[in-house]
């Protein structure tokens, strides 16, 4: 028997007697012989030791010794030990959604603190207790904007992550929304193209800062023009950058979402991550997902509860603001522990450090002949590099030198086959950056001698 079942033979015997049946099989009489499995060929059970060894063997087939200069919205930041240690407490991770507030104050207070930290970071007024990930959070923001404005046209800036844009299109394929995408000019949102599209049928403009190319923008002017027509502005942000960047709140954004992976979550091959969302207080009842509120108990003592539940699926059913049920409470907890550890000054210093290292990398890469680092607009810790040949070929060749050198843009942007985005976090050392530049120089030199680099 697997070691996580406690019943002994005697227990089983006693319990069957109480129930008044003679065997466990009798309990399954509602499942008729005609319902029996046609097959159930699963491997034999294994010991814990065997399973751990098996999975370690699989892990060794992944290339995790690569030095990461790849970002694209998902960054290789350091996770402090205290974060890992605290989220590993069983009282947190083996609890359920806090439906019984008296015995869930730990989770509830932590999530209230998380919401507050997200508001501080974005300078918004109200955050929810998390959504699945940055992409689905942005989709939820689109739905929310449509609910608030009762309009169905949406403008998406081309600098918004192409991964997010694909998700939004998938989800809305059965609903009547009209999407228009605007191009990026000199790395920033095209004012001209966006303004042309703004009208009284438009629900929202979706922007991203820094955008997928790594460039920074101040969208205040777009917000102003949008608001004049009753249009909401949704801003997707990279939270670490907000240590120093102008906040979406200061720009006047109405709904802010983002991917919280960089706030203390490992890369984990794509999940679980953390979708965050914040908005203006006046829109709080239109926001999807769980929201934790402060209140008092019967003795007047401060406590926390799931609040505004009437928006949610278990009450409103088909009229709910979203079908979301389980969110990512543990990831939210992880991020608030991370933000608390870093603190006011540490968080700003972290952002500056990312900026410094990225600037150094830009300078090193710029020195390579034939390579152009785009500098028409400022960037944070990721920037666009134009190579003399197909970037996907260069990145592939760089793998052999031990680097995940960047993300080639050709996959998502037609005509940008020679471009890649390069991300530099606080984990990259001067030596790694210099080695990277040297390797890139070698790869490109090799490419000139015998193009194509490698036809694998």
């Amino acid at each position, binding site marked *: 028997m697997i070691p996580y079942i406690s019943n002994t033979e005697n227990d089983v015997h006693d319990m069957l007697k109480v129930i008044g049946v003679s065997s466990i099989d009798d309990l399954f009489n509602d499942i008729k012989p005609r319902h029996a499995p046609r097959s159930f060929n699963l491997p034999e059970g294994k010991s814990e030791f065997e399973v751990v060894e098996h999975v370690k063997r699989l892990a060794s087939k992944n290339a995790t010794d690569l030095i990461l200069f790849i970002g694209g919205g998902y960054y290789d930041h350091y996770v402090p030990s205290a974060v890992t240690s605290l989220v590993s407490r069983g009282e947190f991770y083996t609890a359920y959604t806090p439906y019984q507030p008296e015995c869930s104050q730990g989770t509830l207070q932590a999530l209230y603190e998380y919401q507050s930290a997200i508001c501080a970071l974005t300078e918004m007024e109200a955050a929810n207790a998390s959504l699945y990930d940055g992409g689905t959070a942005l989709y939820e923001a689109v739905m929310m904007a449509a609910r608030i404005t009762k309009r169905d046209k949406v403008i998406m800036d081309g600098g918004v992550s192409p991964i997010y844009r694909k998700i939004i299109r998938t989800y809305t394929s059965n609903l009547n929304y009209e999407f228009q995408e605007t191009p990026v000019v000199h790395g920033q949102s095209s004012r001209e193209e966006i303004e042309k599209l703004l009208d009284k049928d438009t629900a929202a403009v979706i922007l991203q800062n820094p955008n997928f190319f790594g460039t920074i923008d101040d969208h205040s002017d777009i917000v102003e023009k949008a608001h004049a027509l009753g249009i909401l502005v949704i801003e997707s942000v990279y939270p670490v950058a907000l240590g120093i960047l102008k906040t979406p709140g200061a720009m006047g954004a109405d709904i802010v979402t983002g991917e919280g992976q960089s706030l203390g979550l490992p890369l984990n091959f794509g999940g679980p991550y953390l979708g965050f969302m914040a908005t203006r207080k006046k829109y709080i*009842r239109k926001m999807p997902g769980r929201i934790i509120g402060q209140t008092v108990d019967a003795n007047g003592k401060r406590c926390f509860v799931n609040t*505004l*539940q*009437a*928006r949610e699926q278990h*009450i*409103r059913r088909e*009229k709910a603001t979203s079908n979301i049920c389980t969110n990512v409470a543990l990831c939210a907890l992880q991020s608030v522990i991370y933000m608390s550890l870093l603190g006011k000054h540490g968080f700003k210093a972290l952002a500056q450090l990312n900026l410094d290292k990225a600037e150094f990398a830009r300078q090193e890469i710029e020195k390579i002949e034939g390579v152009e680092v785009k500098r028409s607009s400022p960037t944070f810790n990721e920037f666009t590099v134009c190579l003399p040949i197909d970037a996907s070929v260069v990145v592939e060749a760089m793998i052999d030198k031990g680097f995940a050198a960047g993300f080639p843009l050709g996959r998502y942007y037609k005509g940008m086959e020679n471009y890649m985005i390069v991300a530099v976090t606080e984990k990259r050392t001067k030596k790694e950056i210099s080695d990277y530049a040297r390797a890139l120089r070698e790869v490109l030199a090799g490419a000139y001698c015998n193009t194509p680099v490698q036809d694998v």
Partner: protein
Amino acid sequence: METVEHLLYTKEHEWINIEDGEATVGISDYAQESLGDITFIELPSVGDEVEQFGEFVSVESVKAASDVFSPMSGEVIAVNEDLNENPGMINKSPYEKGWIARIKLSDSEEQSNLMTADEYSKFLVSVG
């Protein structure tokens, strides 16, 4: 459950007080009692056109949300702004201070689809 004699009622537990082509609308004592403490009301806007038995307001309590339907058709000419700050007024005074909106009626014939206080009381008994 309290009812008020001169009002007309719907099966969805709204009441209406008709005076000279205009009317005041609210929810009944039974409705506020079954919703529990009301925490929020999304009021219509002045100028909104409403249809008889069409959704025009939604109210929320801690663990329920429900739509309020207009007892008759017409145009919203006033809303009870006090409810934004103090939605609990609906619980305390469903027939007076907890009124929701005033409507300029477009079809007085629609009255015939509504119940008198007496009929509504019997209806409440029948739905248990």
